Every structure is written in C-alpha cells, then in structure tokens.
C-alpha cells in the first residue's frame, strides 16, 4: 500500500459518515410515535372522527391545510365538503385546533420526529401556547 498515511484516514472519515445512521442508533429501541388524541373537545365528540379518514389525514393533512388556506383566503370560500359529504367550516383555529388543542402532544410529536418545522404557528396560535 502506498500513501497509507493519507488514504487510511480518508477511508475512516468516509466510513464514519456513511455508517453514521448505524452507530448512533444500534441498541436504541425504536421510538413509538403516538400523537395524543385526548383533549376535552375530542372526549366530548360522539363519533370520534376527523374531517377526513385517519390514513388520509396522517399522510396528507398538510396538503389539505394548504387547500383550505387557498380556499378561504383567496376564494373566500369557508365551507369544506368532505369525502362523505359532510360540511365543515374552513378554519385552522375554529375547526382543526378546536379539537386538537394540544399542540405539543399532538402536532409537534410527529413534526419533531420527522424533523419538520411548519410555519403555521407563526400566526395561528392560542395565546397561552405562544409561537412555535
């Protein structure tokens, strides 16, 4: 081997970068991510359902929120008819956050886990919660 003094450290750096996911995670239990659904408002509901089915909401809520924003702010339309034909008021604070009032235990659980920082709460937040 020639120039081992340079090549070996280079390879070690390569290995440290490429195996980063492994040596930082091996032996750690896989975290279970469960957004909390126990808020007073949800407890009061007879049928515990969101505006759309759970699987859809989990994957596509951000898209729906974006559509709601455009619909309310740009078109002035504040009525959403869901896939079952039920009507909802288009409003983040009056519809979504009324039930999901526990931002830290609901929204943030997955967002933090996935490393996502939406800017919804730069404007929409209840006073006691503060920005975030």
């Amino acid at each position, binding site marked *: *081997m*020639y*120039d*081992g003094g340079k*090549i070996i450290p*280079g*390879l070690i750096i*390569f*290995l440290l970068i*490429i*195996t*980063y*996911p*492994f040596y*930082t*995670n*091996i*032996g*750690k*239990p*896989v*975290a279970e*991510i469960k957004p909390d659904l126990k808020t007073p408002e949800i407890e009061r509901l007879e049928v515990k359902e969101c505006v759309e089915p759970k*699987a859809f909401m*989990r*994957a*596509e809520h*951000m*898209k729906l*929120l*974006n559509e709601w924003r455009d619909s309310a702010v740009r078109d002035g339309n504040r009525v959403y008819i869901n896939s079952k034909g039920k009507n909802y008021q288009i409003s983040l604070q009056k519809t979504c956050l009324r039930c999901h009032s526990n931002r830290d235990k609901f929204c943030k659980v*997955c967002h*933090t*886990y*996935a*490393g*996502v*920082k*939406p*800017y919804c709460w730069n404007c929409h937040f209840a006073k006691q919660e503060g920005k975030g």
Partner: protein
Amino acid sequence: MGMLFSLVVVVALILIALFGVKVIGLQFLFGVIIPYIAVLTFIFGMLYRVLKWSRSPVPFHIPTTCGQQKSLSWIKHSKIENPAGTLGVIIRMALEIFLFRSLFRNLKSDLRDGRLVYGSDKWLWLAGLAFHVSFFTVFIRHLRFFANPVPKFLNVIDSIDGFLQVGVPHLLITGVLLLLAALYLFIRRVYIPQVRYISLPADYFPLFLIIAIASTGILMRYFTKVDIVKVKTLTMGLASLHPHIPDGIGAIFFVHLFLVSVLFTYFPFSKLVHMGGVFLSPTRNLANNSRMKRHVNPWNYPVKVHTYEEYEEEFREKMKSADIPVEKE
C-alpha cells in the same frame, strides 16, 4: 442504442419494485433485505476500490500543469496551477473538489474555417456543480430519517433549503435543482453530436437512475403522499438493526428505496466511484517537484552491470596483445 437500453432498465427496475410490493407483497425484501445488501455492497465495494488503487505505486510525479513551474526566483511561479508543495496541492484539490475548477476551462471544441478552436462551456460547469451540490444536500437532508431526535444542523439545512416557503410541505430548492440539473446533463449529452457519439449505457444509466430517484422523491413529498412517520419508523428500524415494516406505506416509497438501493449497489462498480477517485487522481494530487526531488521507481529491476574497469581487468592481456590502449597497465 445505449440510451434506449438504459431507459428500459430503469423502467424495468421501477416496475419490478411496483410489482414486487403491490402484487406479491414483498415489502420485507424491498424494504429491508435489498437496502441492507445495497449498503454493504456500497461500503465494501468502495473500500475495495480505494484499497486496490492504493496498491498501485505512483513513482513519478505526473500532475497536469497549467501554469509556470516553480523556477528561478525572478520567474513568477503559478502556485495553484503548478503547485510545488503540499499547500499548493491542497488548495488545488480543494478548488477541484468544491468548485470543479477543471470544468471551468475551455472544454468546448469546434471547427471554424477548418481549424479546431476551443471555447469555454460554463453551462456544463454550472449544471455539474448544481447537480453535485444538490445531490450532496439531498443526501445530507435524508439523514433526518436516521436520527432521533433530529440533529439541529439538519433543521438548519432544511430551513435554508426551504427558505422560499412555497407550499406545505415547503418546497426544497435542492430537490428541484437536482432533477433539473440531471435533466440538463442528459439533454446536453443527447444534443451535442460529439458527446452523443461517445455516450455509452454507463453514461445514460446513472443519469436515468438519478432522474428517477429525484422524481419519485419529489412525487412523494409534494404529490402522492406517504405517511412520513411510518417511513421514518421503517428507516429507524433499519438503522438500529431492528428492521420492521409498518403497514400502509405507499408503494412509491418502495420504488424510491429500491432505486436508491440499485444506485448504492451500482456505485462502486461504475464511473460513479469518481467520488472516491477524485481524491486519488495523480494528475491532481501530486506536486510538480520533479526538479527538486528525485523520484525513484520502486519496481526498478536490479540490473547486473559490468563496468569498464571490470571489463578491462578481465581482458587486459588480450587487449594489450591486440594493441588496444588500456587505462591501467
């Protein structure tokens, strides 16, 4: 021909993953076994390639020089173009690796009035740089799927990358840039006849593969969504060696993962190893000090010599009798 072949292969790979996951239900194969094999192949393949290169002796310093060599004190030395020592080499290599300096030169050739002329081709340099920087950023960004809690620097990269704040989830510039740059490199390859003429499947295949990877990634992020928490549960399971496939991850994720696995597997056996090779290219990483230092070839065969003194010693008497002059009587 090469283009069509590569395209068919990439489309076939996509269909294999779709078929395997949607029809046969081989989530564990495509989500766990193949990614593990791919990562192992990538790591050991890269080590093998680099260690193999390291066994080749480089006895003589053969840098490509583009400027005045270090010479007499009153001749201006071109320190980076023709480095004489380690510092110059480090600067030259850094500029090469981070800014692709050698691509910033006259790379376009043309026949004008029957004469071959060279001109600059900054678009190639720009697209190449955009492609590599974007791909690197995209790669680093994906580490968020392999760390819990997500390290701060990944959040910072994400917010810089998405500073346009277009849409939710916010548009990440590097993802789009990666796709556009790869498309540009492909179109350039087809559009310029000379480049097209020398293009092989090994040129088209990685391009198509990367275009497909970027497209599936963009599709997943902005269009046909997947449940990102479940995806991260899967990737964290892979990282902690407790593989587990949560139910209900869309097939497109497995297509994306399979294409990435193919890229990882293909990497060490293709021209893509230039990732490691750029550090080991003797025409860049050596100093032009041949006139200051003697470089001896290590595999020089020990030649058996017979000096004139020994020759004369052996034949002196015969030389004398033939009246040939000798040095020693």
